[in-house]
């Protein structure tokens, strides 16, 4: 077994995790990062091209006002201002590791970065600060001492050994949950952090805001949205499907897909953009070519891919502006945390979510380093907090982990439980997921695969339970049986519990600065 001690342990390997490690290391902490995949290639940022919410100081008041309106009474101006100013100050500090673009006018563009290079640069930055990185080393459970965080333990997949790291501060930056679907780069985002934290008593918020979808060529993972501003959609007979309502919303495609396959071409993309595309997003066109498709001429079948809680909103509730949770010493950053403060009831898209991931990473890193200095080492006896998939309540029995994951994907991403849900469809899906959860709790024992199946199932239960309790439509949470927004529900929905889930609605109260 690998045993180690750190001031701050960062769990995760995407952009929030990397910025958290930067924040902690720059504040003088000894930092260890553990990631299920590999820091630099893990997660949804590495395979994409994130934009950051990037607004000059003099334009921020207006940008925040606009965003608050879109947030439908669940956003908070103070958090929006904080992520704008933190991102503005911090992103350019990557310049020694990332070559920011110069636009045609000769100006440096900081906001848009290419994922593989960005995450490669962040890894180099983290390494330059002396952070120890353990790749392919998923965390399986948190360690507690008298109710406070004391570290974590997990597996090293390539060395085939366990690890245990003691730390008085732990940052969960494990990403959101893509429900094991084809969203690019999301396969390892199985909701692990939600389960790890919830087992120590941390609540979740905003989980009902998870009906967010994006377009991909069917059977592919290419969920990058940019090209589809030039899309034309067709039904099986070749008739054009016109967007209804807001052209940015994809609900009309979900309606069309219920009636049969939907096809698309990109014939309206101007030639100069086609020529530039390989150097904007190198991974887009090969996906088509490798299936023998010319997307500018041929009609190709599309799918709507769930973005789960990644481009959705929900996650762990935070108690402080430093991103600490209700478990002392446990912090959450990026998509592991609820983003309702900055996005409200709608998706933050890539830009707000990236600004949030960077900012919450830096804040949690700084605060975790400060806390660790105050607390010192975590020695002595600890409790292991992991339950589902690790320590079954009954006799271990053989359960097919791949089948468990397939069930989660089917129940949590079906249009009947996302775009077109009602009490009946949600109850039906929850019956399936609750039964699966009971099986997991009773009999599933194993390592990473079992734990992933448990975390996926738990996350789907939280999302659909929250959807059932919010009896209105607001933002990306829509209900067929409650199609309008209810004024009395301009409140956050807090879920507590892993086995039995309790829902409470709480007023939006801004955390005092």
């Amino acid at each position, binding site marked *: 077994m690998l045993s180690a001690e750190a001031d701050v342990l960062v769990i995760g*390997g995407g952009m929030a995790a990397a910025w958290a490690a930067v924040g902690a290391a720059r504040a003088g902490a000894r930092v260890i990062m553990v990631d*299920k*995949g*590999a820091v*630099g*290639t*893990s*997660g949804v940022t*590495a*395979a994409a*091209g994130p*934009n950051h919410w990037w607004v000059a100081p003099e334009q921020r008041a207006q940008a925040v006002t606009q965003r608050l309106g879109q947030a439908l009474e669940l956003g908070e101006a103070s958090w929006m201002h904080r992520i704008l100013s933190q991102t503005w100050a911090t992103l350019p500090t990557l310049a020694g590791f990332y*070559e920011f*673009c*110069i*636009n045609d006018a000769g100006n440096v*563009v900081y*906001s*848009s*970065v*290419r994922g*593989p*290079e960005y995450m490669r640069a962040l890894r180099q930055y983290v390494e330059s600060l002396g952070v120890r990185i353990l*790749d*392919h080393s998923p965390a399986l459970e948190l360690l507690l001492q008298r109710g406070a965080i004391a570290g974590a333990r997990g597996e090293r*997949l*390539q060395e085939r050994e366990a690890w245990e790291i003691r730390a008085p501060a732990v940052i969960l930056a494990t990403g959101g949950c893509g429900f094991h679907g*084809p969203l*690019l*780069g*999301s*396969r*390892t985002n199985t909701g692990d952090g939600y389960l790890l934290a919830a087992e120590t008593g941390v609540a979740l918020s905003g989980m009902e805001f998870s009906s967010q979808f994006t377009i991909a*060529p069917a*059977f*592919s*993972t*290419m969920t990058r949205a*940019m*090209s589809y*501003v*030039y899309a034309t959609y067709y039904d099986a007979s070749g008739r054009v499907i016109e967007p209804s309502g807001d*052209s940015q919303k994809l609900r009309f495609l979900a309606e069309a897909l219920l009636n049969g396959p939907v096809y698309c071409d990109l014939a*309206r993309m*101007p030639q100069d*953009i086609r020529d*530039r595309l*390989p*150097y*904007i*997003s*190198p*991974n887009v066109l*090969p*996906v*088509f*070519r*490798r*299936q023998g498709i010319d997307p500018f001429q041929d009609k190709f079948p599309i799918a709507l891919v769930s973005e789960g809680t990644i481009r959705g909103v929900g996650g762990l509730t935070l108690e402080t502006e430093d991103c600490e949770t209700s478990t002392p010493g446990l912090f959450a950053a990026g998509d592991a945390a609820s983003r309702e403060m900055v996005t409200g009831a709608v998706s933050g898209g890539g830009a707000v979510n990236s600004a949030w991931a960077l900012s919450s990473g830096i804040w949690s890193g700084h605060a975790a380093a400060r806390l660790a200095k105050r607390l010192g080492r975590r020695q002595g006896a600890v409790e292991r907090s992991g339950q589902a998939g690790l320590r079954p309540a009954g006799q271990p029995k053989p359960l097919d982990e791949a089948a468990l994951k397939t069930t989660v994907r089917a129940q949590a991403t079906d249009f009947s439980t996302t775009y077109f849900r009602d009490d009946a469809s949600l109850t039906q899906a929850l019956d399936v997921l609750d039964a699966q959860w009971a099986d997991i709790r009773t009999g599933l024992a194993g390592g990473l695969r079992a734990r992933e199946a448990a975390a996926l199932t738990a996350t789907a239960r939280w999302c659909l339970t929250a959807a059932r309790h919010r009896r209105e439509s607001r933002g990306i949470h829509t209900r067929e049986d409650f199609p309008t927004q209810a004024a009395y529900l301009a409140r956050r929905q807090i879920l507590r519990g892993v086995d039995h889930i309790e829902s409470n609605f709480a007023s939006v109260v801004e955390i005092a600065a």
Partner: protein
Amino acid sequence: MIELLFEDLCTQCNECVTKCPSNVFDSVPGAAPAIARQDDCQTCYMCEMYCPADALFVGSDCEKPNAPDPAEIRASGWLGELRRNSGWDEWAADPQYNNQIWYMGEVFKRGLAR
């Protein structure tokens, strides 16, 4: 998903073993790495990007393997295209491959303005 590893091109640097975020490859002493867990591939193309020898091919079907013909893939010109179009390594000095991600915002603006 990951389909092919061309052993004659592979330099056994094991970058794919290190970089794959879903741990698909196993290193093999004295030989090219093995595609040990093809089912775990998440079709993110990271291994292709990081392969300095252009010895890997990821098919764009993420649901199932399609066993493409290695000779056809070798002749396709696809090996190494992601790394080249990204301007990595030996392509870094060629201005044709400059990173133009900044133009993403313009693409959205122009598209939505129509």
